[in-house]
């Protein structure tokens, strides 16, 4: 199962390499005008959101490398982070991983706040990491995040709680409060 997951990630990586191209105008326009509500909800139509999410999934490396170019202000950064939750789980995890790489190399525009916010999914991927705390990819990702983010980051405790399984309770309560479904469970190692 783990190999299958790795294969999927690799396929995604491959796809991003071969499909990196100029951003379609419709997507560029959405980034230019889109916004995120105080509840973390992206504005725009589902078509706009899915188009941007698909572009980000197919061009993850390029999007992260040009993160500050594509999203030069907080509004647009928040939009990309919010829309990233509309990718498939594997694509989302890969996006988080690439963000950590960007933070490690000092990629312009990829700072601790962006990474913290991306790890704290509030919509489609809310609880994905917390509920999959036993998935090795998630464990690796969270460990990488703990090592990459500053020790003073408010996300350190959340990452610790994800790894310990405590965050599952916290997010579970939050999902229940809002009558929202629990997130998709990723395969765990036998």
């Amino acid at each position, binding site marked *: 199962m783990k190999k299958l997951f790795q294969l999927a990630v690799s396929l995604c990586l491959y796809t991003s390499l071969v499909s990196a191209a100029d951003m379609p105008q419709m997507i560029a326009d959405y980034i230019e005008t889109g916004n995120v509500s105080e509840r973390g*909800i992206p504005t725009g139509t589902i078509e706009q959101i899915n188009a941007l999410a698909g572009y980000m999934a197919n061009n993850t490396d390029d999007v992260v490398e040009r993160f500050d170019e594509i999203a030069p202000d907080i509004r647009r950064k928040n939009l990309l982070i919010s829309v990233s939750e509309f990718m498939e789980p594997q694509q989302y995890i890969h996006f988080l991983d690439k963000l950590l790489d960007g933070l490690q190399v000092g990629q312009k525009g990829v700072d601790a706040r962006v990474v913290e916010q991306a790890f704290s999914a509030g919509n489609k991927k809310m609880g994905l990491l917390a509920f999959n705390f036993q998935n090795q990819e998630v464990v690796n990702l969270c460990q990488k995040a703990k090592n990459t983010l500053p020790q003073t980051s408010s996300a350190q*405790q959340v990452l610790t709680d994800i790894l310990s399984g405590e965050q599952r309770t916290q997010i579970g*309560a939050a999902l229940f409060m809002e009558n929202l479904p629990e997130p998709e469970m990723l395969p765990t190692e036998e």
Partner: protein
Amino acid sequence: MSRHRSSKGPRESTRAVRALGTPSTHTPKRASLSPSPMLHHTAIFLILMLVILQTPISANPFASGEITINPDNPTGSWQSPRALYPGESVRITINVDSSGNNYELEGSPSLSTLGPGSLWSPTSNNSPSEYTYVYEAVNAGTAPTSDAIQVDATWTEQLDPPSGGGGGTPPEPDSIDGYAVGVAYTNKPVFSWNSNPKLQFADGQTIIDFSVTASANGAAIDLADYTVKGENSWTVDSNPNGNNIAGTVKSGNPSEGELKITFDGKFQDTSPDKIGFAELDLAIAKFGSGDDLKEDRQPGGGTASPPHEMDPGGLVIASFEGSESTPIRTKLTLTGSSQNPGSNGKYFLSQQSLTKAKIYDAPVDGQEITLPKEWSSSAFGNGQTLYIESEEFAATDDPEEGTLKLKYQCELNGNTESLEDEVKLNLLPVDLRVRKQGTAEAPATGLLVTKGDVLELAIGKDYFNQDKQFEELITWEFRRLKGDGSYTTWAPFGAHGKGTKFEHTTSEGGIYQLRIEADGSHVEFLRDKDAPNIAGSNGIENPKLKAGEPDFVGVVSKGSQISVRDFALAHLGSTAWAKSAPITVGSGVDPALRFAGSWKCNLFVFMVSNASGIAVPTKIWQDKVFGIPPIVNRPVPPGANDWYNPGFAIPNWTWQAASTSPEPGWVAIHQHTSDAVSGGAHLGFLDYDGTWINAGLNNVNKSIHVSDASYQPTNYRKPK
């Protein structure tokens, strides 16, 4: 030997007339014998009748003379003692004796006139006896002239028949030619004119006074039968009174000319000075680009009843330094005419006591016109439309009241004449203020009162303590924020909501905007500073909540709404409810739940409501812990979706649909219903101004307003 005595003939008499100093071009005729006395009399009768019918006869000649000629005194003359002035007459009676001293009249005397022949005419009692002629000379207003009436007669000696019948040629009878001459001459009086002013408004109403007197050789001339006239477009009202005609002239057309005096329709004299009527008007709108105020000058003089352009005059709403309000310019209309009188015409616009007035040539932007401004008549044309704005006022500045004057100046009669029209202008610094009665000013956090409280409203903080003004001009209006983010239509407060200030007792909860209306233009109650914490998680400040945008007055139905709002507001800016932060909720919520990484908008509402005394119960989450018993029951607050859902009962908070009119202290809830968002909802407390006091991604902020489309539809809950 024939004896012939000849008196001075007609030629000599003409010289005599000329010696009197009056001209004559008439060629005198010698006396001649009439071939037929009957025919002669008939001709004279017809001529005299014709003259009688054509010539006005004066009833009261000021002088009369009588001449009798006969063979012994065959000549005689009489001359008017002085010139005849229009309307005056003299009379002469000429008697021709038919015989005397052995001479007898030969035929009938002949009458003739010397000169233009228009003065003398027979009177109605002419020829009272044979060979008596009564004539009158009348000045009918003609040009100065001199006329003579002359009667020629010839007497023939009556010879006795030769005695004895001796032969021989009988002696030829002697004859005596005689004549009588009456002379009269006319003149015009010397007129003395006066008019004031020389230049007046061509408004068809405003008058120029004039007077004219006449004299002759120092003696006053009665002007009863004289008439004063002017240009065709002028209306002249003249009132003769003895030696004086006083009157008025007015005109509705720009024009210039002299006054003329006539007698019986005949021109007598022209005023030495021209007078003129100029089209000139300076008009000002009550406010903005509304209707012009009426003219203060009343027809025929005096001042019209206010309101008019001088009372109270036009209004320019000024702003205070630092204000974000957009200036509203008041229209100023300058009217002249290319046909205005005089030469070298110029127009001047100037201000008095208006240090902050600025004039522009357009209602917005445009070119500023520095006062005083001068235009040539050609550059001015028939008028200009300008717009007045005010510089900003410092907090310590008083309102300004002054005048704007438009002057037309020209050369007339070699003098500089001018005409002015003025309007009054009030520069009123306006910064609408509202406060609760008994307080000095609204709190920095905005004005929030309870239904029944009295509001004091004024167009600026200084106006609270001044007498109310401009009640006829300023009307206060309000509109109410509706739950769907729209507003009710603007409505006036009523009869009490007029002028620079008023008081209003609140009668209904809600979130209100205020403005004043002045002749179609409006000034809104605006924020004098940015609302606090108006940036959301995206870092962008809500533009509706910036300084210069409309501000609000909040009215609550219950005091508890103020309490909960104050509790919420006290946490503005707090990061305690940031998504990433852990928090201890309390109020029965499982203390193990810290909600780090979770949205906390519902936690914020839960905690503030409970803290302010409005209890919100928890609901139970059965934590199955991987689906393996034991199940742990964990009390949690209601979620945002619960608050939104009308079917979810929250004691002490009553659900309200989007169609309601929300009040401060209510909870506003928006559910994202797109397929993209899985039913996430957000909520916050309404502040006095319709903003949400909400816990967002990073902090508690006021970045959302009920009118924001991205947060509609919105449901509400109000405290019971």
